[in-house]
């Protein structure tokens, strides 16, 4: 199935073409050309992806499309192919990466208007999409890892896109370095996996078939190490600190990172290795616990932020926590379903936020906005739908996916995880409606002249609004009269739930009630005239400063590392190693001078050397030949 390779290659090729055109003459304004190439490439990928998905839909659940591009490494029994594979899990990822990715590209063509790096931006953007597609279509973990790294690279390039400002470069570095820590765990995990399989499996299918060859202890180690990779990419505790800083990039980048690519990679990876995680339930619980803590932490911090993009960033972190609760507890299809619905509403929220920021001349503080309901009607309506969706109000998308996760958490018996998830659900509704009310409903402080928004920014919002409203209907659970089409489509090895329908109704009702309570609280506090809250209490102060986690990391990791590096530089390297090398140099020169002094040009010395040489030779000959 050669079409598979086109999905991946087209964004890469267009990234290359855009890069070459841009570098040929960076100053020449060619926005039309760049936008045409940059948006067409993902659109073609999306079309091909839809064709493949339509085929998969009509076929048996175990159908896997496969295409081998070429042999990459071939040493003895060791074969690594550059090959692509699309099963139903990949197809789901493929769908939202390409479709939502294309919409974000379209939006970016409006958002980036007038930027001097327009061509560069689209080149990076296509590279980002291509890397993510490589990641989800990889047929073996090594190719997946290449995609994984390329995603890290392109996110770095895009986060520090406005590189004239030092803070943005730092943010890019931070994202890259924290991802590296995760990637380190990931690659060690892969190496241990390959070693313990002793050559019986390099592709996902072979690994799955031979997974029983590995003893449980090693399997646990592999599961943990792979999850460390997921922690980095998907911004889980303790590697989440890069995500809020990643807001330094242009807003379409945030939309792409948070919705369609990058952060979902970790969830996808755990779901892809579901056969492995099903054999290590302890690690699954650990993942779920990390997920729940991340969800709660993200929600608490988001409730106290004032920057519109920061709120959304922490909200992403919190929603990713939900996804890890699901995949950790073995409800892989629920996790992927939440990835799927989240992609719609989070892309929409970020693009809406970007539209507001552009309209208000790059104002990001929500308390300086207000009263935009009438002026930005076509941003308000999609944002309202997305907010309803993320808050879990039926029948919008987020309700079904979040409900499925919370029901899984409840029925798994880990009530602490369930409690954290439920509190997060309440907080989610609160902080999202806080954002919505402050920005759109609260009266504005001063009359502002708004920047007009191009259609290319509004149309994607409307399309995604439809998606956010309806995507959840794909996964209506049996308890609510549906048949959970989504779960039966992805066909992942979920753990069965043992829970009566009545409990499910009760849990859903509880979730809806809590969400509505959150909305009500936000309405009471923020729908009327609001002022930027002062950080007057100790608690607020701590939360607004994100629990000082960045400072804690600086104190515990960065500082000791710096001190150690300085110590190594000045003491070990400067004093010991340099001196050893200087001593060696000195002795060579000394020996050289001594030998050179033998060659003094005086004939009688030369004769003397001959005398010594001849005496030595004749003496030794006498001894050897037995003269004495």
């Amino acid at each position, binding site marked *: 199935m050669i079409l598979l390779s086109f999905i991946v290659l087209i964004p890469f090729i267009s990234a290359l073409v855009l890069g070459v055109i841009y570098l040929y003459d960076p100053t020449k304004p060619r926005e039309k050309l760049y936008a045409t190439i940059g948006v067409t490439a993902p659109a073609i990928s999306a079309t091909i992806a839809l064709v493949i998905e339509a085929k998969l839909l009509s076929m048996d659940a175990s159908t896997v499309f496969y295409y081998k591009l070429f042999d990459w490494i071939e040493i003895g029994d060791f074969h690594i192919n550059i090959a692509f594979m699309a099963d139903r899990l990949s197809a789901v990822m493929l769908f939202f990466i390409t479709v939502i990715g294309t919409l974000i590209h379209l939006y970016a063509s409006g958002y980036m208007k007038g930027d001097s790096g327009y061509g560069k931006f689209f080149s990076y953007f296509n590279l980002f999409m291509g890397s993510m597609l490589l990641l989800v279509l990889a047929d073996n973990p090594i190719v997946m890892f290449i995609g994984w790294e390329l995603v890290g690279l392109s996110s770095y390039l895009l986060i520090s896109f406005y590189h004239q400002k030092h803070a943005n470069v730092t943010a890019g570095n931070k994202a890259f370095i924290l991802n590296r820590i995760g990637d380190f765990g990931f690659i060690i995990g892969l190496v241990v996996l390959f070693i313990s399989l002793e050559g019986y499996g390099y592709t996902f299918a072979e690994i799955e078939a031979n997974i029983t060859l590995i003893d449980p202890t090693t399997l646990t180690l592999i599961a943990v190490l792979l999850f460390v990779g997921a922690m980095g990419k998907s911004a889980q505790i303790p590697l989440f600190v890069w995500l809020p800083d990643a807001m330094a990039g242009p807003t379409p980048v945030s939309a792409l990172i948070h919705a369609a690519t990058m952060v979902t990679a970790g969830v996808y990876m755990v779901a892809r290795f579901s056969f492995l995680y099903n054999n290590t339930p302890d690690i699954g619980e650990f993942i779920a616990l990390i997920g729940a803590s991340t969800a709660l932490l993200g929600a608490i911090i988001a409730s106290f932020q004032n920057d519109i993009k920061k709120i959304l960033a922490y909200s992403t972190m919190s929603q990713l926590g939900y996804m890890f609760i699901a995949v950790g507890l073995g409800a892989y299809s629920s996790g992927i379903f939440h990835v799927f619905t989240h992609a719609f509403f989070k892309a929409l929220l970020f693009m809406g936020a970007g539209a507001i920021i552009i309209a208000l001349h790059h104002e990001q503080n929500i308390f300086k906005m207000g009263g935009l309901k009438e002026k930005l009607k076509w941003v308000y309506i999609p944002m309202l739908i997305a907010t309803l969706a993320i808050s879990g109000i039926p029948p919008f998308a987020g309700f079904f996916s979040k409900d499925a996760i919370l029901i899984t958490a409840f029925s798994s018996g880990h009530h602490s995880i369930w409690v954290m998830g439920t509190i997060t659900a309440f907080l989610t509704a609160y902080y999202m409606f806080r954002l919505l009310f402050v920005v759109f409903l609260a009266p504005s402080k001063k009359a502002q002249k708004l920047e007009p928004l191009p259609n290319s920014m509004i149309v994607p919002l409307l399309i995604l609004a439809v998606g956010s409203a309806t995507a959840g209907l794909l996964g209506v659970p049996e308890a609510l009269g549906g048949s959970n089409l989504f779960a039966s489509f992805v066909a992942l090895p979920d753990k069965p739930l043992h829970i009566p329908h009545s409990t499910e109704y009760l849990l859903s009702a509880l979730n809806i009630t809590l969400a509505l309570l959150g909305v009500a609280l936000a309405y009471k506090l923020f729908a009327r005239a609001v002022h930027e809250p002062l950080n007057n209490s100790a608690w607020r102060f701590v939360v607004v400063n994100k629990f000082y986690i960045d400072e804690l990391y600086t104190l515990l990791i960065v500082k000791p590392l710096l001190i150690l590096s300085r110590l190594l530089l000045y003491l070990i390297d400067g004093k010991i190693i340099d001196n050893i090398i200087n001593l060696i140099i000195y002795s060579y020169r000394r020996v050289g001078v001594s030998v050179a002094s033998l060659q003094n040009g005086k004939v009688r010395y030369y*004769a003397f050397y001959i005398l010594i040489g001849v005496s030595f030779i004749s003496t030794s000959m006498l001894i050897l030949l037995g003269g004495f």
Partner: protein
Amino acid sequence: MIPEQFFIVATLLFSIGLVGVVSRRNIFVVYLSIELMLSSVNLLLVTFSRIDQSMNGSVMALLLIAVIAAEASLFLAMIIQLYRSKRSLDSDHFNLLNQNKGDL
């Protein structure tokens, strides 16, 4: 005849000549030492010729004496030339081959 006595004399002559070349700085003395070594070789040639009961070695020795005489004239001319160039007979002054500038 006891050849060992001749060998010892030849060895002594050669050693005295060699030590002279190595230890003395006056070019004349160096030249004399070289001549001494040549004489010891001549003595050896004649001794072996006698032991072998053949005239080959003696003929060689006679030839050598002629060559040494020719060489002596060449050598003396060279010494005069050396003295003219440096106004010195000290062999240590003729060290053009010296590469060692003594730097460290």
